[in-house]
């Protein structure tokens, strides 16, 4: 089952903050976050594992709430380079399963000067 992301789109001015949520109806083992710019390949941001720590990539951090089956991506002091579509992906447990991702529908983030 596909995780659900919210909001579908966010428009920010440079320096503003944003939160993107990713919810699943199934128990989560890991949540993976990727950013895709228009016409480019998705790029890995971070992975959160069940029972693991909150992760950070530059000024982007993420949390994983196992009870709520939800992950949130926090973008602080946004930069123009943050613009793109953010996808969360969930993977089943298992050694080679880390890449068998079921992606959400994406959240389009636009940062204006």
């Amino acid at each position, binding site marked *: 089952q596909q995780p659900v992301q919210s909001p579908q789109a966010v428009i920010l001015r440079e320096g503003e903050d944003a939160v993107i949520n990713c919810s699943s109806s199934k128990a989560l083992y*890991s949540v993976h976050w990727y950013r895709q710019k228009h016409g*480019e*390949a*998705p790029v890995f941001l971070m992975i959160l594992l069940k029972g693991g720590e909150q992760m950070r990539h530059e000024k982007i951090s993420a949390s994983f709430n196992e009870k709520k089956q939800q992950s949130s991506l926090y973008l602080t002091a946004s930069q123009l380079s943050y613009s793109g579509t953010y996808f969360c992906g969930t993977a089943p447990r298992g050694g080679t399963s880390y*890449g068998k*991702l079921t992606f959400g*529908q994406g959240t389009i983030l636009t940062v204006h000067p």
Partner: protein
Amino acid sequence: EAGVAQSPRYKIIEKRQSVAFWCNPISGHATLYWYQQILGQGPKLLIQFQNNGVVDDSQLPKDRFSAERLKGVDSTLKIQPAKLEDSAVYLCASGLAVTGELFFGEGSRLTVL
């Protein structure tokens, strides 16, 4: 370090024709994935290889799609015959279990007329 290479970047065909896409993963990455990304949606997993063996092809429409990874390196994805709904970007990704990170190629954009 060279990234994941894919070709062709663009392909336009008519329905019922066939098409093949090629992927060369990052050297040393044993796991290779093919994803299908329809415009406006998140990538959807089609098939996973571990070395030259198929690990999971449960979401591959096997009546028209086929994939192989000879010698555990390069991979090809074939569609025959193509349908209008196959219009999408086909993304190849490789990764290492130790980090959980996937490296995506730039994709092959297919348009079926």
